[in-house]
C-alpha cells in the first residue's frame, strides 16, 4: 500500500474498498457531499469531517462512529427515506439523500440533549414508579412520552413494491462466514468435490485478514501478508466451479433442518443445506468506563477498517487501549496512516521478552498494566485518562493525555448467535473468559473465532476438521486418515493452547461518573443495572426486561457481555452461572419487505365475469372470488326467479372430481350421510364434519359412474376441503384420484317456473320430471357444450345446476340469456339468492354455522347416519347426540315491521344468549325473517323470543317449517 501522510489533508484517499476514480455525489441534511465508489455513507461523511452521527435513544447524547461493522446503533440515519439505516455498512450511491434522526435542530446542537442533564430524575424503570396517581396523570402524560420515543420516521407514502424477491437453494455444505476459517473450510471441502455455498456479509472475502493486516503468520503460505493470504484463498474459492459465493449476504437465522435464511440486498435466500459450517468469527466489543460513548471512542477494528477499507484518517492523535498484541498492530497501522499515536495502554503486565515484536517502535510509549478510566471531552474526545492497576508499581495516579481518538481494542465476543439458535452447547470458560462451543447438533459445525478460541493456527485446524467431517457425513470423504491425524493435531494444540497464561480485560473499568453506558441502543447505564439488581431483578432475563439492556437495535451484540459481567459482580454469582440473554432471529435486522417478498394474491374471476360487469353488476368479494351482488334491483331479480326464470353464476363453488374403485368408500367415510348406496345418475346433499362432530362443509355429491363422483363444496372452503379429502385418502391409502377442477369448470344455476322451457330450447336432454327428476344428474350437451346437469334447488324452484368447461362460459351465458328472453329471464346475484334460499331455510356453512356448530343444532340430524360403519366425526356425533342439546337453529318471522341484521343478538333476561345468523325482508312472508341460534330451552319452551334490532328489543316468532313452499312441490315440479 502506498505511503500516506495525514489522509484528511490528502485530496485523494486510498483504501482497498474504494475507487477514487469514480466520484459519488450525495446529500446530507440538504447539503451536497462527495465520496467514492466503494464508500459507505458513514465513511464518506467521516472523510468529510463529520464526527457526530446520531443522538442516543433516551438521553440524546452525541454518538460517533463506533464499530464500522453495522452492529452498534450509533450511526443510524435515514437514507432515501428508509429509517434506521446503519450508515457504516450502507454502500453509497449517486444522488443518495441522507438525513440525521432523533435530533433537533441538528446532531451538533440537539435541544433534547438537555435530557442528559435530567438523568438523575430518570433512574432505571422510572416510568414504572411515577405518573401513577391521580389516574388521569398517565393518560395526559403518555402522548408526550410517545412523541419522544422512536428513532427513524416512517414514510407513510411508501408502497410495497415488487423490488423484493425470494429464492430457494439447496447445497451439500453451507459455510457462513468467509474469513480465514470459512475460506480454509471451503478450500478443504472443494477437494472432496462437495457442492458449497459460501455466505459472506462483507462485499469481499477475507474477513479480518482485510483490516488486521499485520496480524498474520499463516503456516501454509509463509511470507505472505494477511491481504495476500486472503487473496490467495479467495482466488481458490472463487475459481472453483463447485462453490457459489454470496457476498453482501447476511445469515439471518439457522432454523430446524439446517434451513438457513440469508438476506442479500432485497432478496431473501432460503438455503436447505445438508451440512452447515459456521465460521462467523468474532467482533470487538466496547468497554464500560466514564464517558465511554463519547464520539472519538472507537473500536480498534473500526479504526482499521476506516484506514484500510476507505482510506480515511480516523484522527490526529490517538491512544490505543488494548489487552492483546492486536492493539499493537493497530498502533502500527495508525502510525503508518499518519496518525500520531500518543500511547498504548495495555492491560497486561510488561512481558519479559517481546515475542510479538510490539516493543520495536520506541517512539510510542507503552503503559503496561494500564487501562482507560475516562474519556475527556464534551461532544468529542479531547483527551483520555488512563490508570495503572494498584498492583503495578510505576504509574499510580491517573494520567491525563491529550488526544482526539481513543481506540478500544480489548475484548472480543464470538458471533455465535447462529449456533445458539441451533441449540449448540456453549459454555463460559473462565480461563479464556470466552464462551466456548462445546457441542453442536448433527450436521452443524463451528470453526474459527466463533468457537471462542482466538488462535489462528487452531482456527485453521478447526476449519479443516469441520470441512472433512461434513464431507464424511455426506459420504464423500476420501481422506479418512487425514481427518484422524488432523483431529489428533487439533487436540494436541488445544491442550498446549490452554496451558498458556491469559490476561483478560474486565468489561467494566471502575470509575466515578454517572455516565457509564452499558447499552448504546437504550442508554442503559451501569448504575441502572446495579440499582435494578438491588431492587430484586437479579435474574439476567428479568434484568434485561426491566432495564431494557440488550433489547435495542443491536440486540445485545455490543452490551450483553458487559451486562452479564455486571450482573455477576452485583449478585455475587459466577459468570458461568449467569446464563445469557437469548439471541433471537433474525440475527441481522431484515426488513419486512424482504421477508414478505413480492406478494401476489390476485382476485379470482369467474368465466362470465365480463358479462356481469357489462350488465352493471355490483361486485362483491366472496372468499377470494368476485361475485355479482346484484344487477341493480334485488327485488326484481327475486321476482324473476319466483315467477319466471333466473340464472346465477355459481362457478365459484368448489368442484372436486373423484375417480377410483374406492371413491365411494372414501366418501362414505368423509360424509356423515350414506353415499355408497347413491345410484349412478343421482345426486345427494351431504355434510362433512370434523372428528369432534363440528360441521366443516356441505355440498352435493353426484355419482356420474360406479367409480366416478363429482363433488361440490362451499366457495370459501374449496382448498381446505381438497386437503381434507386428500389427507383422509392418503391416511387410509384409498385407491382414488382427487382432482380439484374448480377453476376448470364454470357453472350456472338456472331456476324458476320456466327453467325447463329455457333449457329445453338449448339441450337435447330429456328434462321431463319422469326422466330427469329432482336430485338427478345427467351429462349431455347444452347449447352444444358438453356439460353435467344436476337437478337441485338451492333457491326452492325447479332448477338445474349446469357445470361446463370454463372456456365456454361467456358463450353459454349468452345462449341461456338469449333462450330465456321470451320467458323474461333475469340474471340474479348473491343477494337475491340469499333471500331465496333463506325462504327455504337452506343454511350457508360459515354464515349459519360457526366453528363449533354440530348437525344436531343446525337441524341436520337427518343427514347423520350413525348406524353407518365408522366415518369421520362419528365418535364426536354419538357423544353429542347423547347430551342435552345446548343450542338450536330456528327460523323466525318478526312480529313487527323491523328487519334484523345478520349478527343481531337474541336477548333473554338482559343477556345476549344467542344470535341471528341470517335475516332479510321476505317478499313471500311480507316481514323480516331469518335464522337464529337460540339456547335450547328458549327454542323448545317458547314460541317467540326477543331480538335486539339496532339496540331495540323486537319480538320474533319461531317458525318450524320452511317459509316458502314447505312441501317442496315447486322444486320437485
Amino acid at each position, binding site marked *: 500500500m502506498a505511503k500516506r501522510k495525514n489522509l484528511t489533508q490528502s485530496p485523494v484517499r486510498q483504501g482497498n474498498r474504494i475507487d477514487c476514480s469514480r466520484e459519488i455525489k450525495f446529500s446530507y441534511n440538504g447539503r451536497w457531499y462527495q465520496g467514492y465508489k466503494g464508500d459507505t455513507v458513514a465513511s464518506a461523511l467521516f472523510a468529510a469531517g463529520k464526527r457526530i452521527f446520531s443522538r442516543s435513544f433516551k438521553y440524546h447524547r452525541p454518538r460517533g462512529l463506533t464499530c464500522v461493522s453495522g452492529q452498534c446503533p450509533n450511526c443510524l440515519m435515514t437514507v432515501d427515506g428508509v429509517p434506521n439505516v446503519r450508515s457504516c455498512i450502507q454502500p453509497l450511491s449517486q444522488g443518495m439523500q441522507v438525513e440525521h434522526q432523533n435530533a433537533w435542530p441538528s446532531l451538533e446542537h440537539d435541544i433534547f440533549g438537555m435530557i442528559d442533564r435530567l438523568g438523575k430524575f430518570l433512574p432505571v424503570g422510572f416510568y414504572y414508579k411515577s405518573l401513577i396517581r391521580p389516574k388521569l396523570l398517565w393518560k395526559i402524560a403518555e402522548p408526550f412520552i410517545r412523541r419522544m*420515543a422512536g428513532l427513524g420516521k416512517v414514510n407513510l407514502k411508501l408502497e410495497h413494491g415488487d423490488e423484493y424477491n425470494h429464492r430457494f437453494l439447496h447445497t451439500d455444505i453451507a459455510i457462513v462466514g468467509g474469513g480465514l476459517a470459512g475460506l480454509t473450510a471451503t478450500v478443504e471441502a472443494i477437494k472432496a468435490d462437495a457442492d458449497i455455498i459460501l455466505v459472506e456479509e462483507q462485499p469481499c472475502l477475507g474477513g479480518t485478514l482485510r483490516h488486521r493486516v499485520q496480524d498474520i503468520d499463516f503456516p501454509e503460505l509463509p511470507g505472505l501478508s494477511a491481504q495476500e493470504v486472503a487473496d490467495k484463498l479467495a482466488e481458490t474459492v472463487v475459481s472453483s466451479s463447485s462453490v457459489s459465493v454470496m457476498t453482501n449476504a447476511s445469515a439471518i437465522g439457522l432454523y430446524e433442518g439446517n434451513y438457513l435464511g440469508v438476506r442479500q440486498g432485497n432478496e431473501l435466500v432460503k438455503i436447505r443445506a445438508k451440512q452447515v459450517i459456521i465460521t462467523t468469527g468474532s467482533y470487538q466489543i466496547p468497554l464500560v468506563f466514564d464517558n465511554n460513548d463519547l464520539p472519538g471512542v472507537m473500536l480498534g477494528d473500526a479504526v482499521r477498517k476506516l484506514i484500510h477499507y476507505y482510506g480515511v484518517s480516523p484522527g490526529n492523535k490517538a491512544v490505543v487501549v488494548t489487552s492483546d498484541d492486536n492493539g499493537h498492530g493497530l498502533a502500527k497501522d495508525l502510525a503508518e496512516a499518519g496518525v500520531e499515536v500518543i500511547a498504548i495502554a495495555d492491560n497486561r503486565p510488561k512481558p519479559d521478552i517481546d515475542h510479538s515484536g510490539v516493543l520495536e517502535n520506541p517512539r510510542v510509549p507503552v503503559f503496561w498494566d494500564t487501562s482507560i478510566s475516562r474519556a475527556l471531552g464534551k461532544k468529542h474526545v479531547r483527551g483520555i485518562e488512563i490508570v495503572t492497576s494498584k498492583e503495578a508499581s510505576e504509574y499510580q495516579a491517573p494520567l491525563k493525555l491529550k488526544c482526539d481518538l481513543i481506540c478500544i481494542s480489548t475484548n472480543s465476543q464470538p458471533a455465535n448467535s447462529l449456533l445458539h439458535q441451533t441449540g449448540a452447547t456453549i459454555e463460559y470458560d473462565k480461563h479464556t473468559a470466552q464462551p466456548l462451543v462445546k457441542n453442536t447438533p448433527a450436521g452443524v459445525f463451528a470453526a474459527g473465532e466463533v468457537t471462542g478460541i482466538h488462535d489462528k493456527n487452531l482456527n485453521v485446524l478447526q476449519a479443516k476438521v469441520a470441512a472433512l467431517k461434513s464431507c464424511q457425513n455426506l459420504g464423500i470423504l476420501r481422506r479418512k486418515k487425514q481427518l484422524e491425524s488432523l483431529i489428533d493435531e487439533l487436540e494436541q494444540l488445544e491442550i498446549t493452547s490452554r496451558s498458556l497464561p491469559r490476561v483478560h480485560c474486565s468489561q467494566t473499568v471502575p470509575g466515578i461518573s454517572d455516565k457509564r453506558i452499558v447499552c448504546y441502543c437504550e442508554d442503559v447505564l451501569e448504575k441502572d443495572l446495579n440499582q435494578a439488581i438491588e431492587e430484586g431483578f437479579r435474574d439476567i432475563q428479568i434484568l434485561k426486561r426491566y432495564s431494557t439492556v440488550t433489547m435495542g437495535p443491536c440486540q445485545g451484540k455490543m452490551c450483553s457481555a458487559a451486562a452479564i459481567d455486571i450482573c455477576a459482580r452485583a449478585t455475587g454469582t459466577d459468570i458461568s452461572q449467569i446464563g445469557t440473554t437469548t439471541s433471537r432471529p433474525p440475527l441481522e435486522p431484515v426488513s419486512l419487505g424482504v421477508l414478505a417478498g413480492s406478494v401476489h394474491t390476485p382476485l379470482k374471476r369467474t368465466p362470465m365475469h365480463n358479462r356481469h360487469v357489462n350488465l352493471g353488476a355490483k361486485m362483491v368479494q366472496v372468499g377470494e372470488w368476485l361475485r355479482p351482488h346484484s344487477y341493480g334491483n334485488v327485488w326484481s331479480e327475486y321476482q324473476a326467479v319466483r315467477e319466471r326464470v333466473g340464472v346465477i353464476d355459481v362457478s365459484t363453488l368448489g368442484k372436486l372430481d373423484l375417480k377410483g374403485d374406492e371413491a365411494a368408500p372414501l366418501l362414505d367415510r368423509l360424509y356423515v350421510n350414506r353415499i355408497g348406496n347413491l345410484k349412478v345418475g343421482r345426486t345427494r346433499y351431504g355434510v362433512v364434519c370434523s372428528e369432534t362432530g363440528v360441521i366443516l362443509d356441505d355440498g352435493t355429491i353426484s355419482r356420474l359412474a360406479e367409480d366416478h363422483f363429482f363433488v361440490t363444496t362451499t366457495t370459501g372452503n374449496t382448498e381446505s376441503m381438497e386437503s381434507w379429502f386428500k389427507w383422509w385418502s392418503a391416511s387410509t391409502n384409498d385407491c382414488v384420484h382427487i382432482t380439484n377442477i374448480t377453476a376448470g369448470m364454470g357453472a350456472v344455476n338456472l331456476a324458476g317456473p320456466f327453467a325447463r322451457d329455457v333449457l329445453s330450447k338449448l339441450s337435447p336432454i330429456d328434462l321431463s320430471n319422469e326422466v330427469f327428476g329432482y336430485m338427478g344428474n345427467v351429462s349431455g350437451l347444452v347449447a352444444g357444450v358438453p356439460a353435467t346437469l344436476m337437478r337441485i334447488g338451492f333457491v326452492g324452484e325447479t332448477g338445474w345446476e349446469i357445470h361446463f368447461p370454463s372456456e365456454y362460459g361467456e358463450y353459454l351465458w349468452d345462449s341461456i340469456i338469449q333462450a330465456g328472453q321470451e320467458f323474461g329471464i333475469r340474471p340474479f346475484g348473491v343477494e337475491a339468492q340469499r333471500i331465496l334460499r333463506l325462504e327455504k331455510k337452506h343454511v350457508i356453512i360459515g354464515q349459519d354455522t360457526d366453528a363449533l356448530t354440530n348437525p344436531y343444532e343446525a337441524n341436520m340430524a337427518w343427514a347423520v347416519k350413525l348406524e353407518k360403519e365408522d366415518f369421520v366425526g362419528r365418535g364426536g356425533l354419538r357423544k353429542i347426540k347423547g347430551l342435552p342439546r345446548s343450542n338450536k337453529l330456528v327460523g323466525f318471522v318478526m312480529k313487527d315491521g323491523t328487519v334484523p341484521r345478520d349478527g343481531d343478538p337474541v336477548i333473554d333476561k338482559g343477556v345476549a344468549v344467542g344470535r341471528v345468523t341470517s335475516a332479510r325482508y321476505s317478499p313471500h312472508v311480507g316481514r323480516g325473517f331469518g335464522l337464529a341460534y337460540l339456547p335450547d330451552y328458549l327454542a323448545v319452551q317458547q314460541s317467540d323470543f326477543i331480538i335486539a334490532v339496532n339496540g331495540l328489543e323486537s319480538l320474533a316468532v319461531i317458525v318450524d317449517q320452511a317459509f316458502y313452499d314447505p312441501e317442496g312441490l315447486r322444486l320437485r315440479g
Partner: protein
Amino acid sequence: MQLFSKEAMWDRKPLKDRYRIVIIGGGVHGLSIAYYLGKHGISDVAVLDRSYLGGGGSARSTAIIRANYVTKDGIPFFHQSLKLYQDLSQELDYNLLFSQFGRVELGHTESALYALRIRSEANRAMGVNSLEIGPETVKQMIPAIDMRVGKTFPVLGGLYHPPGGVIRHDAVVWAYGRGAARSGAELHPHTEVTGIRVDRGRVSGVETTKGNIDCDIVVNSTAGWCSTIAQMVNIDLPIVTMPLQACVTEPLKPFLHKTVSSANLHVYVYQTDRGEVVIGGAVDPYPTYSQASTLPMLETLAAHTLELFPCLANVNILRQWGGLCDMTPDYAPVMGEHPDLGGFILNCGWGTWGFKAAPAAGMNIAKLIATDKAPDIIRPFAITRFKEGKLVNERGGAPAAAVQ
C-alpha cells in the same frame, strides 16, 4: 418517594417443606392468584416456577387487553378483567403503562364484517363498548393504513373497541409479584415441579427439584405446559398446546395509535410507547411444546403486515419469538377445582387470551380457594363442560382461527 426507592421487589427465601397452597407457574396468572389470596388474608402460599418469574407465556405475550368477546359467559368475565386492569396501576402502586388507545379489528370481506357485527352486537347488549365503524372512520383512526380498493384484502370496515389497549406485560408480572410477596406469599423461581402427591383422592404435596413440599391445595397455572402438569396426576385435559409467534421492529417515531388486527389476514399490529411495532399472528396449526420461531411464519407475518401497512416495507424486524398457547376446543379457559381430585385447582386453557384475563382469573380463583365455592362468573368455565357438552363458544372471538 418511590421514584428513588431501591427497595427490593421481593425477597429470596429458602423453600419450606410445607405451605397450605402451592401455585405451580410463576407467570402473571400464578402471581395474580397469590396476590388476591393475600387480599383474603391467605399468605401461606408458595409460587413455584421452573424458570424466572414471568418467563413463559407472560414474557411472550403481546399483552393486548380487550373485552370484546362473543359469549354471554366470556363477555362479563373479560369485562371484569378489563375493569380491574384499568385500576391496576393504582391498586398495585406501579405504573403498568396501560395504553388504552383503543382497538380496531378490520374486516376485509362481507363474512368478516358479519363476524365483527356478531361481536359488536353481543358486546353492546352486554354493556361492553364496541361498535362497527366504516372505512372512512378506519382511515381517520389509522392514517397509515392502506385503503386502496380492488386489492385482495380491501378494508371494508371494522370493529372499534375504545377501552382496548396494550399494557406493559412484564410490569404486570412484577407488580403482582411484589404485591403477593408483600402479603406474605413466597416466590420461588427456578424451582421445577417434578411430581404431585395424592392421598385418598386429594392432593397432598408436590415434588420439586429443590425438595418436597406438603400442601393442601395445588393450583395448576402453567399455561402451555398445563397438560403436562395434569399428567402428573393422570388427568387428561382436553387441551392441545400450540405455538404462536410474534415479532417486533426497530423503534420508529409514533405513527400508529391503535391496536389493529385482521381476522382475514391473521395478524395484529400495534406500536408501543417505545416506538417499536409489535406484530403477532395466528396460532401455528400444529401441536408442539417448542417455542422456537420459524422463518415461514416470519415471512407470513411480514406479508400480512404489509398488506395493511405497505409503508413499513423498509422497516427492519429486530427479533421474533414464539410462545405456547394451551388451546381448548371452544377457545374458552378452564377454571375451577377438578371434580375427581380434591384440592387440584385448574387455571388453564388460556390459549391466546390469557394475559387479558389475569386479574379476573386471579381474583376469582383466589375467591374459590378462600370460600371453597366457585364464583358464579367462572362457573361456566368448569372442566365438566366438556363432558356435559356445554361449551362456551368463544371461537368466533379469538383472533386465532382456522385451526381445524
